[in-house]
């Protein structure tokens, strides 16, 4: 088994826009995520974090560069990357139940429905939701409960990497802490790596092994979380730290 779950090599994404110059949202970015590792990705608004998340999950194609999953190009790799979105309620089809949403990947992969349902109930319970939540709709549960269901959904296909794009930003502080501790528990149980996108350095500090700092489409600083926070090298990182720990 290759050492790294994810290898991003020199990836650039250029958005062509009508009537405006094209935009290099991600500009020659390279990084890796090790097996079972939790990597934080921080940076200001509009610096390209979501674009990286969408590239890694193959929702969009890079303009240039290559992305490899478990040592193979993502186009050839059978197992995908799963994602937890910023707005949990909007990430579930409003006309389908949370359980249907969580079972979709399993059913699409050919698992019989009763078995998929059983597995989803187990995952919901694993994520701290009572079994009857599988029959609820996103608008019938709280944001935190919905995000738990989204985590259950992401875990269902047993991915080796989950991208969490500001998965806790829409939740209040106590719920945030619960979700982070759920993520920690899950990681202790399965060898599942996280790419944790966030702009709250305080949250990242206690949770991530390694930190990537992004600024205007580039990764400007990279290293173990404690090290980056203790001795930031790039002026932008310093700025971020000042803003976070005043």
């Amino acid at each position, binding site marked *: 088994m290759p050492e790294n779950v994810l290898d991003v090599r020199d990836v650039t994404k250029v958005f062509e826009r009508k009537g405006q110059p094209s935009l290099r949202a991600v500009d020659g970015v390279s990084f890796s995520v090790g097996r079972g590792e939790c990597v934080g990705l921080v940076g200001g608004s509009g610096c390209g974090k979501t674009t990286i998340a*969408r590239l890694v*999950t193959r*929702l969009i194609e890079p303009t240039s560069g290559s992305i490899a999953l478990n040592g193979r190009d993502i186009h050839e790799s059978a197992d*995908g*990357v*799963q*994602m937890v*979105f*910023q*707005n949990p309620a*909007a*990430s*579930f*089809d*409003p*006309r*389908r139940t949370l359980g249907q*949403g969580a079972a*979709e*990947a399993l059913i*699409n*992969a050919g698992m019989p429905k009763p078995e998929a349902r059983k597995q989803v109930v187990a995952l919901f319970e694993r994520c701290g939701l009572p079994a009857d939540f599988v029959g609820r*709709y996103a*608008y*019938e549960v709280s944001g935190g409960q919905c995000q738990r269901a*989204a985590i259950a*959904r992401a875990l269902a*296909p047993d991915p080796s990497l989950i991208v969490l794009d500001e998965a806790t930003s829409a939740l209040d502080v106590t719920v945030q802490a619960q979700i982070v501790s759920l993520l920690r528990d899950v990681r202790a149980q399965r060898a599942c790596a996280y790419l944790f996108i966030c702009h709250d350095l305080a949250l990242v500090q206690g949770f991530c092994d390694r930190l990537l700092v992004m600024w205007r489409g580039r990764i400007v600083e990279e290293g173990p979380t404690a090290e980056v926070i203790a001795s930031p090298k790039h002026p932008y990182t310093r700025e971020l730290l000042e803003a976070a720990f005043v």
Partner: protein
Amino acid sequence: MTQTDAIADVTVRVQVVRREHTGLMLVALVTLAALIILVALCAPVLCPYDPYAQDLSSALQPPSAQHLAGTDRYGRDLLSRIIIGAQPSVFFTLLLVALIAITGVTVGVLCGWKGGRLDVVLMRVSDLFLAFPGLVFALAIAGVLGGGMTNAVLALAAISWPKYARIARGLTLGQKNEPYLDAARLAGCTTAQLLFRHILPNIAGPILVTAMLDIGTMMMELAGLSFLGLGAQPPMAEWGSMMSDSRSFLQTAPWTVIAPGIAIFVVVMVFNLLGDTIRDYMDPKRRAGRRNARSE
């Protein structure tokens, strides 16, 4: 209880009453609509007389115990003709609405989903159809195609599908960038699965409501074309052509015009109200409200 509490309480009660009211209305209207369709289905059995049998000796008789709605100028029983006339009205209208809804939604979803040149071309085509004054254009088409219900349906379909294309396109554009579609993509859905499993159910509500509201309008326009001699051809019993057929007797034997007129009025109104009520009922916020009301 403070004043705001009292106001909130009243608001909640009003909402609950309106909700129950909508539910009752819906049940009543669905029953009525089902009844109308049932009458159309069983029309031959329900007719007290042969709707096509002429009896000149009893022509233009006013409503009586024998002929509940009177007779027309050939002595045909009007009640029987109205009952049998439900068939072309209901079936051709449903056919027409299904035709325009399916065509329009297919075009609209395709345009909204694909975008680009396909979108531009198809939407210009639909603009072209929308630019003509509707019924006049339908008259021209029906005139070229000749009379008959099928041609009337085709003529009205030609002018009516762009509305659905517009609605479906707008709704598709609204759903296209929703995060839940990204989640479905990550679950491995194909484009067909995205469209049929996720997009269509999420845009179906407003389209169904439009279709329900259109049933009444289309029934009216079909009857209108028939009235002008471009739809149903005599001796076929169709409400529009029956009114047209008898219009010279409006003063001497008004029941010959009023009876089919009432039939059109009642059926159109039932389907229009049904459309309105379904719109109220389908509102997703109301759906949430109902669930909460149940669990309280």
